[in-house]
């Protein structure tokens, strides 16, 4: 009888959600502050960048601000030269993108249809900051995983 119960439990574990479904983004306060400051500096255009970390660590350690080549309030694309430089640095340092961030300047901090369609870093946390109701105080900062067109919001834990 005990054996039956055990195997049932094992079966439940197997069909449970993939582990990343309940991921948490743990990120330093200084990085969050840098992201918000960049968003405000580039307002009303969208600001974008990354926080990279050691491969496989899921730990955002090095903040890199990117130029939005589109300079647009509704679209962003990393400057292609800066992106190549970033990839070479990451390659040399065995790093990967842990966080991709961008701002929404007039809409909520939720991935747009364009964001979902173009997401190309499956391991990354997609962090969005919204300046739609910015009064100089706290602004919404949210994190998502985007995989095969599916958006999953995840908790953000900010470390001091």
């Amino acid at each position, binding site marked *: 009888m005990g054996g039956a119960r055990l195997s049932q439990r094992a079966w439940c574990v197997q069909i449970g959600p993939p582990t990343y479904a309940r991921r948490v983004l743990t990120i330093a306060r200084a990085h969050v502050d840098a992201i918000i400051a960049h968003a405000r500096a580039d307002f009303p255009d*969208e600001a*974008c960048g*990354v926080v990279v970390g050691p491969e496989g660590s899921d730990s955002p350690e090095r903040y890199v601000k*990117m130029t939005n080549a*589109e300079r647009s309030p*509704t*679209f*962003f*694309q*990393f400057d*292609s*030269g800066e*992106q*190549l430089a970033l*990839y070479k640095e990451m390659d040399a340092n065995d790093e990967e993108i842990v966080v*991709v961030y*961008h701002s929404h300047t007039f809409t909520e901090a939720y*991935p*747009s*249809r*364009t*964001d979902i369609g*173009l*997401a*190309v*870093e*499956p391991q990354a946390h997609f962090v969005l900051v919204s300046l739609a109701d910015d009064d100089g105080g706290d602004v919404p900062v949210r994190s998502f995983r985007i995989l095969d067109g599916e958006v999953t919001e995840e908790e953000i834990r900010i470390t001091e």
Partner: protein
Amino acid sequence: MAVEVKIPTILRNFTGGAKTVEGDGDTLQQVIDDVETRHPGLKNRLVEESGLRRFVNVYVNDEDVRFTGGLGAPTADGDVVVVLPAVAGG
């Protein structure tokens, strides 16, 4: 010697997991066509009818080919082609 083509993680399913493949050609177009003969399916992810896909960055020796002739950009033995999916959104 040939042209070295660096493949991004997201497209390595076309190269059996290889980070780098080799191709021959005097232009980016020829290199891509040559690589396609050994890694079918890759070309469609890089090129559409009108040229390079909008959200794929291709560099020959660190120069974004959008500024150096697109698919007609010249290539030679020993050159390095880097393919990166653009990081973009709205």
